[in-house]
């Protein structure tokens, strides 16, 4: 039973005759623990797909099931709670809270949900991501790569069903990108995390277990073992 499943996903914007088909019938299934990359050019629909799967937006048609939850019929409030508890996000521009320290940023989603912090687990994540010396630093004192590592730690801390990364190395230079990419792969294996990453860059996608190519809102190619 896949942990993430989308069937006949469609997302249209606008009205006839100017209808934009951002997603035009997409079927995706991701198994637990898989690291999947979705590759496509600008405007291919990859970001839209990620937003659908993460419950950030509702599809025009089709079904999305994440770890047994059917997203299609959820209200905004239900989706917010669903996201907080089940999805970890890593964005291109890190999206850290500037007035909170590294540690506070990492545990924020846990605290927002009113849950107890699993201290040993959070310490392990901080250690794995090489952030021990930066626990009390503010985001503006960190390099781009370090900020992205904090974002990854934050995404992992809630032990989400799926981790979604939107061009996670887009704002980083090539060496830092390769470093962060390795971290994404390594943490997904170490913490048995299911991960989906979208990118326009084949260089980045190559580390995934499976690469899905998307064009004009449709999946055109899927590389399998």
């Amino acid at each position, binding site marked *: 039973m896949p942990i993430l499943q989308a069937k006949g996903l469609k997302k249209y914007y606008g009205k006839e005759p100017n209808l934009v088909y951002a997603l035009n019938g997409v079927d995706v299934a991701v198994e637990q623990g898989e690291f999947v*990359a979705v590759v496509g050019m600008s405007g291919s629909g990859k970001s839209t797909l990620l937003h659908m799967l993460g419950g950030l937006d509702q599809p025009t048609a089709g079904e999305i099931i994440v770890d047994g939850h059917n997203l299609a019929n959820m209200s905004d409030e239900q989706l917010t709670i669903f996201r907080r508890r089940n999805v970890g996000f890593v964005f291109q521009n890190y999206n850290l809270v500037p007035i909170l320290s590294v540690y506070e940023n990492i545990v924020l989603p846990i605290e927002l949900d009113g849950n107890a912090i699993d201290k040993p687990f959070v310490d392990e994540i901080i250690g794995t*991501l*090489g952030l021990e010396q930066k626990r009390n630093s503010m985001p503006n004192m960190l390099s781009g*790569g*370090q900020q992205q590592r904090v974002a990854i730690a934050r995404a992992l801390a809630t032990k989400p069903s799926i981790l979604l990364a939107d061009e996670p190395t887009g704002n980083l230079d090539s*060496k*830092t990108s*390769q*470093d962060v*990419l*390795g*971290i994404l*792969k*390594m943490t997904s*294996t*170490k913490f048995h995390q299911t991960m989906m990453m979208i990118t326009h860059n*084949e*260089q980045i*996608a*190559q*580390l*995934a277990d499976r*690469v899905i190519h998307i064009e004009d809102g449709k999946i055109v190619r899927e*590389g399998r*073992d």
Partner: protein
Amino acid sequence: MKTPLSGITMYTDLLWEGNITASEQQEFLSRMKTETEKLQWMMDCLIKISRLEVGAIELSPVPAGIKQTISDSISSVYSAASKKDISIKTADFKDISVLQDRKWTCEAMTNILENAVKYSKLNQEIDIAVDLLPLYTKISITDHGIGIPPDEWNLIFKRFYRGRNVKNVEGAGLGLYLASLILQKQGGYILVDSKVGHYTTFSMFLQNCKK
């Protein structure tokens, strides 16, 4: 496995039939030896892969300098490289201590270097460079051979996969998969970058020792 085995079978049959000259006999025996060695290599590879995959072998990464590992790997491929007049140049760098099981890391690196030699033309150069990144150390091995198209970058690390443009070159499609598995078991990974007809760079990433 089939190609070396069918070669050995054919030569055995020819030798059995007789009616061959002494020099033909030498030739066939020599070819049989080569095919047997290839089979041996494939068997060893497959056994290592199986054992690593099920955890029957555990790697023991410890802090160790990367210079020695690189030097050992180069020695392993030196004679194959010399036969093609290929020179292997390592850019200067200060030794870095990384988390590695040296024997296995060396094996992975040797596989990559062997590929670099195999897919380079005569008289070419293979360049090795080392970069220290925040969490990893990157060891890049660049050849100036045929190159690999981007749509194959994810596939070449898969078991038994052979690139479209190397169908005429000997290979089992196991070396890269084993190398990638070895790196993963040490918390590392391999990336490829290439321009068809110009160069291919395989970069091996190993974890830096915690300070």
